[in-house]
């Protein structure tokens, strides 16, 4: 029987892959994709918990809000990337080094 744990394993895998993507990629759009993976993994958690543990739709409503936030974030992110591309003619994060950490 497919149970809660199955979904949690999938979401943990997505989360880990998302973190991996964020850590190892230099292209800004790739990092954004990693962020989307993380947010999707959290959403999967929410819906799975909503179905199996909480007995109401709170998790699903939360997931809708997460989708809203993620979409807005990506829109702003791409606006900044585009603006930066015009400045720098590249979105390689290594080139974004005029500010020394």
């Amino acid at each position: 029987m497919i149970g809660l744990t199955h979904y949690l394993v999938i979401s943990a895998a997505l989360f880990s892959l998302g973190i991996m993507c964020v850590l190892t990629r230099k292209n800004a759009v790739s990092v954004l994709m990693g962020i989307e993976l993380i947010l999707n993994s959290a959403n999967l958690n929410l819906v799975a918990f909503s179905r199996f543990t909480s007995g109401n739709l709170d998790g699903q409503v939360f997931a809708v809000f997460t989708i809203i936030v993620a979409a807005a974030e990506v829109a702003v992110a791409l606006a900044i990337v585009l603006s930066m591309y015009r400045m720098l003619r590249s979105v390689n994060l290594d080139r974004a080094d005029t500010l020394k950490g």
Partner: protein
Amino acid sequence: MDPKIIADLHKFYPEIVITGTFLLVIVADLVFGRLRRAVTFALTVLGLAAAFALTLPLFAAAPGTMFSDMVALDPMALFFKAFLILASLLVVLAAPGSRELSGSGLGEFYALLLGVTLGMILLASSTDLLMLFLSLEMVSVGSYIMVGYLRNDRQSNEASLKYLLFGAVSTGVMLYGITLLFGITGSTKLIVVRHALAGAATPGENSLILLVSTLFILAGLGFKIAAVPFHFWCPDVYTGAPTPVTAFLSVAPKAAGFAILVRFFFTGLSQAGQGLTWITFASINWMPIVMVLSIVTMTFGNIAALRQENMKRLLAYSSIAHAGYILMGAVVLTSDGLQAVLVYLITYLFMNLGAFMIVIEIYNRTGSFELKDYRGFYRRSPFLSVSMSVFLLSLMGIPPLAGFFGKLYVFAAAVNRDLAWFAVIGALNSVVAVYYYARVMKTMVIDGGDETSPVHASWDSTALIWVMLIPTVGLMLFWDQVQKITSGSVGLFLGN
């Protein structure tokens, strides 16, 4: 409509006013042609002032939650509402005179600032994890855009991209932690979370998942207050952003982050113990972990600031260090500690904003943020140099300036909780900090400079600097009031 919602709306006036101003500013920016700058500025100032005025009567209202336990209305929430609106108002007053922002239209700036302010006051009063996440994101996304406001400036663009990527990852991780907490407790309301954790029959087996989930949530909150190791975005973003935005970020979202951190730990993860202390649930002992965080943060911030040559970067590391001191007050889990946090934040608001105002004005007149261009500034503008020295002395924590009281309260709270060694580390850190603050003072006052042309600060900047100076110097005189306000604001609505 549900009558309870309508009743709650009557206690929601500050938020409604800010939202209304936000919408009006957008429309005004589109409608008015040449009068745009003046009209949007006036609208924003009036709106924020009105919201501030509407917050004050709410102190008399009975504490409780609103909108189905989404936000709380308690003294602490109201304190932060007033604080954050005031901080936003001060930054708005500094914006039109700023040389960095003079090339761009300011209508969107005010609109974004209002949106971020709305997010901050909701964040400071959130009692539900969904509301926490949503308002945190609202503050963050608005901040990302404000940091990148100078579209043609490379540093500004870079800073905003770095801020966004780092911030989005932190809040994504935080969200994952929130979902785990939701799975364990079945609800997103902090009050229910607390009940579920307190009543857990066998806390042992849940301890790992609780640790993981709270660490993840701490990642998001730590990012907002720029605590180590979530501080990596801070120096670059502070340096690249237009300085009024930097000033804003260093005070307001940081304070909002502290508000929700305190609320999360006190109402979500602890319960009232004997006397005035809180105790965390047996499964996880949070105090040592967050104490280490506080120590690492203040130490790193101070040490990194020692060799900075750029004023904005120096103040960025200085603000990281101050976050460490403020954490000290939150960590000790007592009412004293909470009061210390509030006191420190009040003093920090004025002294940090004051220092930034001067940096802004010096840039307006000379076009530089580098310390080497501050040499011999005393000859060029005694007013700016002396007021900067006052703010720096206050940041150092020298009595009788305001900063001293902030540190005093925080260290006292630690000592009262039998954590004298913690206070000693804080004191040692303050001593280290003296070096870099004093270095700026020495550069301005004692060193000889090549440029000797006099610098006259504009009247509006001068007025604003006086507005920051008076509380910094004179807070001691009003200490009774400050005491009363902060101890009265410590009340957190704990639910039943």
